Structures are given as structure tokens and as C-alpha cells.
């Protein structure tokens, strides 16, 4: 086996030094009754050539955003990934290290995380960001738990326009903690209904959670929601699953958010069938000691040189055990590095330009849809790069028809929103050329549906 260096001679010599005769004897403490008395029932090993052949065979059986024209979004986005990212994260000093427990030989990882924390703060308009969470959904769940800790209240309001998979994850995390989850209705414009929010907010409410933009691609009125939320002493959590929007939109911090949770997949991470992605998490300075996850801080070494260390660890599970602010240990470190490289390359101008392209292309597609006889735009609220299309022909048939034309035309809303069973969610990014959008519209016009 090429990953294991031991020769038969090494094994014999090492056994001798250990003072046993056989490998079997190393396992004396494993009772006979629980020993596996047969070989594992797994396929025989393959060589590198065969492995590549097998995996290429599996890869060929999948539709990708390159082999199809894709308009799928809904929490995972097809964006441009600069070549630099993969080249740099393939430096194995980065990807074969673990958590920077020994700062003197982990300054590369630590400085990069410090830069990541800074970038997330700048982007979200918040004071402090952690070193990463698993994804946007679990980060949102952690945000809810943090608001519950801070307010000592048990009621949580989730907008119905929040990504349904984020809502489901929040529900799982809260399942046995005695919390009450209440849904806030969606208004006709696709924004969270402010009258319903006002009615449901009370002095027992710990948190209100909104998507920004929300699952329908609509840009919520975060400032108004923050004002209402704060009147009741509750915390406003904004969940950002499409952070490219923050290249253009006012930051949640500027609008009064108390906690910003989100997913960084759009910033240079491959779609990878849903993961690994990156949860980001940002809070206000006053709440830093209640936040979950690792933090990197600046300090100096014995010679006065600048350096970075993991800090404020007394919040974390390895010190506080059951009283920790979260159970998270391994996070999405390498994904945070990818996002840091992406944002370094795009920078101030690039992120804005990318956001503008998404906005303009989606607006163009939206107009084209609006002009079709059998289709209309479901919500009038302002949107970024996603919008909901209402369809006269059954949605399932429309999407299958498009599929046959080589187009992944959108996400059906039927399972998550029975009231929108005649609707689908369309996403347009800088990756969709005008010809692709025109092809989508032409296919629908021509009755691919």
C-alpha cells in the first residue's frame, strides 16, 4: 500500500521493540467476543489508474452547471471562481494543517483568518466576525441560540420568506430546548409582512430572523424590521445566503441587525452538490463573549513582533464543556481561506461590479419573463439576482421541458410553499450570458413547457 511505509522487516523489528510476537497481540485488550472474525465486506482495492477511471465514470453521470444552462439558486449559486483560489489552497502547508493550536507554526492560517474576520466585518457592517461556521443554515441556527442566550427569552420569529432549509435547520437545533418558533407571514410584495411581524412581536421574543435578500430573492426592509424588533428588546438576525448582494446593498449592520449569519459559498466555492460551504457569523462588540465559534486575535511575541493567536477560548467547548456557547470545534477553515482569497482578488470594485452584473442580468431576465403570455412575476418587491415566476402550465412539466432543452430552469416552490405550487424560483448570475437567458425565454415561449 503506497500510503503505508512499513516493510515486513520494519514490522518485525518494531514488534520486537514493543515486546510482542504478532500484530494480533497488540489488540489483546479487545475482547474476543467483539472481534470481527471475517474480513470487511468491501470491494477489493483499486490502483490509481482504476480509481481515476471509476470516479470519471461516476462524474459523467451527473448534470453540472457547465453541461447545462443553469438558473438554479435557492441558497447555492453558480458564480465565477478565479483560478488563483485553487492554486493557492493547494499549497499543502494550508490544507494539510489542522486547527492552529500551536500559533508559532500556524501564523499563515491565523493571519488569513484574521483577514477573513476583517473582510466579513467590512462586508456585513458588524463589529466582530468569527473564524467560520458550517454553512448558512447552521450559522442561522447558532444565531437564534445566541439571541436566546442574550435575552433569556424563548420565543423566536422566523419569516416565512426565510430559506425553508434554514428554517428547518433552526427547528432541528431548537428541537429540545423548549423554544417556541413562530412563523411570520409574507406580504403580497414578497417581503416579510410588517403588520404580521408587529402583531407577533412581544416582550417574550428573543429574535426575529429575516433573509436578506430572502428566499424569493426579494430585498427585505431590514431597517423597519430592526426598529420593530428593538422596540420589544428582541434581536434582529439577518441570514444572508447570497452575499454577492452585499456588494451593492446596504450592509445589515448599517440597517440595525444585531447578528448576521450567512453562507459564503458564492465567494469562490464550487457548488459541490451542497458542500463544503462556509457559514459566516458576525455580531456587535458588546455581544462578543456570547458568540459561538473560534476567534483569532492580534498580539505580539516575545520580541515584540506582530502575531496572531486563537483567543477568547473560554467561550468554547474544550474549556467550558456543557456551558460553552456552542459545540463547534472543526469549522470550515479552508473554505474561509477560499473566501478570503476571492474577496482579496475582487476587492472594492470587483465585488460591486459583480453584484451589478447579477442585478442587471436578473432584471433583464425578469423583464423577459414578464412579457411571456403564460408566465408572470409573482412578487413586485425589489429583487437582486433571484425572482419567483408564476406559471400557468404546471411547474413540474415546465421544468422537465426545459431540462430536455439542456436548461436547469429553476427551483419548484411546491414542496416548501404549497400556496406557491404554481411558482418557481429563477436565479441569474454573471455566469449566465444574455444568449442563455434568451434561450430560456425562447424555450418557454416555444412551449418547451
Amino acid at each position, binding site marked *: 500500500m503506497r500510503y503505508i511505509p512499513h516493510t515486513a522487516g*520494519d514490522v518485525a523489528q518494531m514488534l520486537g521493540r514493543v515486546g*510482542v510476537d504478532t500484530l494480533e497481540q497488540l489488540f489483546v485488550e479487545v475482547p474476543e467476543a467483539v472481534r470481527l472474525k471475517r474480513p470487511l465486506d468491501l470491494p477489493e482495492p483499486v490502483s490509481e489508474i482504476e480509481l481515476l477511471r471509476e*470516479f470519471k465514470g461516476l462524474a459523467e453521470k451527473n448534470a453540472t452547471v457547465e453541461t447545462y444552462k443553469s438558473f*438554479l439558486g435557492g441558497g447555492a449559486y453558480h458564480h465565477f471562481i478565479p483560478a488563483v483560489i485553487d492554486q493557492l489552497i493547494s499549497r*499543502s502547508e494550508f490544507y494539510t494543517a489542522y486547527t492552529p493550536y500551536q500559533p508559532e507554526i500556524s501564523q499563515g492560517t491565523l493571519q488569513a483568518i484574521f483577514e477573513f474576520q476583517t473582510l466579513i466585518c467590512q462586508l456585513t457592517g458588524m463589529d466582530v466576525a468569527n473564524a467560520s461556521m458550517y454553512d448558512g443554515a447552521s450559522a442561522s441556527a447558532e444565531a437564534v441560540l445566541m439571541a436566546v442566550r442574550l435575552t433569556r427569552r424563548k420565543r423566536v420569529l422566523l419569516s416565512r420568506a426565510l430559506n425553508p432549509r434554514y428554517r428547518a435547520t433552526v427547528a432541528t437545533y431548537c428541537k429540545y430546548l423548549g423554544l417556541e418558533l413562530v412563523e411570520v407571514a409574507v406580504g403580497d410584495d414578497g417581503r416579510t409582512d410588517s403588520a404580521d411581524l408587529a402583531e407577533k412581536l412581544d416582550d417574550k421574543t428573543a429574535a426575529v430572523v429575516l433573509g436578506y435578500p430572502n428566499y424569493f430573492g426579494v430585498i427585505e426592509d431590514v431597517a423597519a424590521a430592526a426598529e420593530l424588533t428593538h422596540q420589544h428588546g428582541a434581536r434582529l438576525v439577518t441570514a444572508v445566503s447570497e452575499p454577492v448582494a452585499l456588494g451593492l446593498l446596504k450592509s445589515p449592520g448599517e440597517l440595525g441587525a444585531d447578528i448576521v449569519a450567512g453562507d459564503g459559498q458564492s465567494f469562490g466555492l464550487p457548488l459541490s452538490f451542497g*458542500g463544503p460551504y462556509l457559514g459566516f457569523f458576525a455580531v456587535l462588540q458588546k455581544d462578543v463573549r456570547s458568540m459561538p465559534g473560534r476567534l483569532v486575535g492580534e498580539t505580539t511575541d516575545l520580541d515584540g513582533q506582530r502575531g496572531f493567536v486563537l483567543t477568547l477560548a473560554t467561550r468554547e467547548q474544550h474549556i467550558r464543556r456543557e456551558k460553552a456557547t456552542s459545540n463547534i470545534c472543526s469549522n470550515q477553515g479552508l473554505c474561509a481561506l477560499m473566501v478570503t482569497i476571492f474577496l482579496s482578488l475582487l476587492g472594492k470594485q470587483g465585488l460591486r461590479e459583480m453584484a451589478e452584473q447579477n442585478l*442587471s442580468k436578473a432584471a433583464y431576465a425578469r423583464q423577459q419573463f414578464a412579457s411571456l403570455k403564460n408566465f408572470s412575476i409573482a412578487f413586485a418587491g425589489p429583487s437582486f439576482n433571484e425572482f419567483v415566476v408564476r406559471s400557468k402550465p404546471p411547474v413540474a412539466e415546465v421544468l422537465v421541458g426545459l*431540462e430536455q432543452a439542456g436548461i436547469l430552469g429553476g427551483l419548484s416552490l411546491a414542496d416548501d410553499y404549497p400556496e406557491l405550487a404554481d411558482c418557481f424560483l429563477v436565479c441569474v448570475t454573471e455566469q449566465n450570458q444574455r444568449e442563455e437567458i434568451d434561450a430560456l425565454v425562447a424555450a418557454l415561449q416555444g412551449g418547451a413547457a
Partner: protein
Amino acid sequence: MTIIGTSGLVLNEKLLFEHSAPGRKGYSLPKLDVPKTELAAELCREEISGFPELSEVDVVRHFTRLSTWNYGVDSGFYPLGSCTMKYNPKVNEVVARLPGLADIHPATPAHLTQGMLGLMYRLQESLAEISGFAKVTLQPAAGAQGEMTGMLVIRAWHEARGSKRTKVLIPATAHGTNPASAALAGYDVVPISSDGVLTLEEVEAHMNDDVAALMVTNPNTLGLFETNIEAICKLVHERGGLVYCDGANLNALMGIARPGDMGLDVMHFNLHKTFSTPHGGGGPGSGPVGVTAALAPYLPGPGVECDGKSYRLESVNESSIGRMMAFHGNVGIMVRAYAYIRSMGPTGLKHATEMAVLNANYVRARLEGVYDLPYKNRSLHEVVFSDKDLEGGCHTLDLAKRLIDYGYHPPTIYFPLVVKGAIMIEPTETESQEVLDEFCDAMIAIAGEARDNPELLHDAPIRSKVRRLDETAAARKPKLKWEEVG
């Protein structure tokens, strides 16, 4: 002895933000091919203050220099106990990047993702076979999320039977994530002592009608097999509880014994430990969970199912605890782990375990007598020493820092908590006898230095990019981001 630690030319590098120059660009985008749209002004932000402006070359040099300040498995020996820092095969990185696997949107219909779903299904099945559990979910993102998943499943099983138990027993040797995960499932944690291995008497003394589960790690964090595990599981079951197993140390058991056959009810896997996927500087990992048939209905969804002809994602059923993440888990990590299992095969996995255990015992044999070994049972994949015999007023931290000067990543230190000044060494199977000998020589030399010249330890490290850092100052006045001066 050759000391492999040395200082080459190490380049300094500022923070990204300190390089920035207005107007510099590191990206290119196509010309906009549709009419430009403006968003209502009240929705738009000003430019992002402080955001970097760098050229592509700036960015590449920046991160290349940063990388050289790191130490990874590819740099050298990384015996970080309980983290299983084995070699990360390169072909796994190649297959995970195949466009047909990396560029799939998670909402792509099942009939267009049969290759990926098939891979995930076979990984589920392989993990079930390796562990002896009936069913596996791949969804959890990391070990800690796997633990939480497992504890929620246990809670759901109890609730379905009308049982309102509120407590979970956790040995003092457990990783801190165990109690934190139990708390997230709404349980009160009862710490129990364990002197080396857990005894039936200790569990019996705490087991009552209010205890929902016992969480164990097997082999435990001392590297010892829990020899009473069968009797303990039987007792807990008889008294209406379940047993959770932290699978962080599964590298000690592949092909030797299966946790599912020992009476354990739930276990999480760490694909980034046992199954060779890279640790990424802290993640991403992947923490699948295996359960017995009785617990299978409560697993999170969706999971991959097969009807003999094709694969599909089965949506969440009513008894399921629900969803742990937005999509299907860290799929890119699953691809690497499955590639590892295919490359190793049944005999290869068992061989890996045997060599991992041989390596740990070899290190133990070479260092016993030089360093204090508090627990004498036969070690499995890792060995834990204490700093009791270290002279010259030196402690575990000093030893760790001195190891850096010799060119090694230090072992896990001060864990498990039951050993004072713990030095937890897990060599893994991918290290040769020569590497282990050089490391042991260094450990022995350092023990001598502590006796004869302790300043060498107190001042260490001196060959690293930075010297010891002031962690107290970092925590007292936290500076957690860069800010523009003035």
C-alpha cells in the same frame, strides 16, 4: 542526531489591507451584455470602506508567503493526538475536483445526479459495514455536529417512547464537544470519573431512570480500549438508556472490531481523521453518523436511498429529527473519503489500523522510562504521557515548544484532563520507523535538555517565524480585526 528544524529565508508579509492601493485590480469580468439596471438609491451602500484593492500578483504572493509560515502533514510529522493526522492522498484531491463531481448544484434533480448519489450511497454502505451499524447519515458537517445529531436521535427515540429522561453520563476523559453536544439536545450532563478505562461499577452507580444515555469514546482519549464496553452497554440498555460512541478514534479498530457489534447504539465518524481527508487548517471535516436499526427512523434527512435500479434523495419522514444543514453535508469531503476506501479496500483498511497501533506502541516502547506513563494498559492508536518526570522546572508546554525547534508539530497537550500535563501522541500509520525514531530521539534529547539546560525549553521556539505569543494580552484587550489607523 540530525535536527531537521532549521531556518530558511522566511519572508515577512503585511496584512492584505496594508498592501491596498486605490484603483488596483485583481479580477476581470466580461463586459455587461444586457442593459445596466440601477437599484433604488435608498437600498444601496456606499463603497465598502477598507476593502482591499490588490493586483493578482499581490494576492498570490501574499498567500504563498503566509503558507510558508504553516506546518502541515506534508511538512513533517504531526502527532496531534485524537486528530489522526495521517497523510492526505493527492489523487483524492484530483477526483474531488472533477467537474462532474464539483460543479453539481445541490438542487439538480436525482435522475441527473445518479453518479454522485451512487457514490454517496456506496459511502453510506461502506461506513455501515466498517462500523457494524444498520444505517448511516452523511449529513453532519463535522464530528461535533455528528455528536449533536446522535444525541438528538437518542432524544427523539426516548420521546417516541414517552420517556422524559433528562441526563447524560459523560466520562471525564471525553472531548469537550461531548458535553456541549449533549447540552444542545437539552440534556443535563453528569460527569463520571474514569481511571483509565470505564468500570461497570462506575456506570452502575450513576445509572438510573433519569439517564437517557451514556457517551463513551472507544478507544478512549488515553488510547485504551474500553474493555468493559459490552457489559456496560448491556447494563445501560437494561435500565432503559442508550450508549453513544464518539468515533474520533476509529482508526484503531478498522477490520479488528466494530462498534455496532459491541452494543453501542450510535456513533459518529470523522472522515477527516480516519478516512484521510485533509484537515484544511481547521476544517471542513465531515461527521457521518451510524445507528442501529431501532434508531434509523430518527436520522436527519434527506438521505440517499436505492431501489436496486436508481438512487434518490429520500425526503425527511415524520419521525426524523429534521435537517442539520442547508443541503446534503460536506459532499466534497465525502468524495475524498470514498476514494480512500476504494484505494485501501478491506485488507488495506485493516492494515492501516494495525500499523497505526504498531506505531503508537513503538513510540511508547521507546519513550517509556524517559517520560512518565500514567496508564499501563496496552495502547491502541495513541499513547498519553505526563510531564511528571520532566526536570528543570519544565512543563508540557515547554516540551511542545522545543519540539517545534526540532522540526515537529507538537502532540496534543494538556488533554485528556485526567492526566496532569498530558502529552498525547498519535503517530498514525503513514509514518515510517525512521520518522518515529527521529522523533523519539528528539523527545529523549529534550528530556536531557530539560535536565541540563532548561533555558532551551523555556525560550523555545527560536526557529519559528514568531516566538512565543502573548495570549493573555490577546484575550484581555481583544483585537479581532484590522482597522484603518486615524
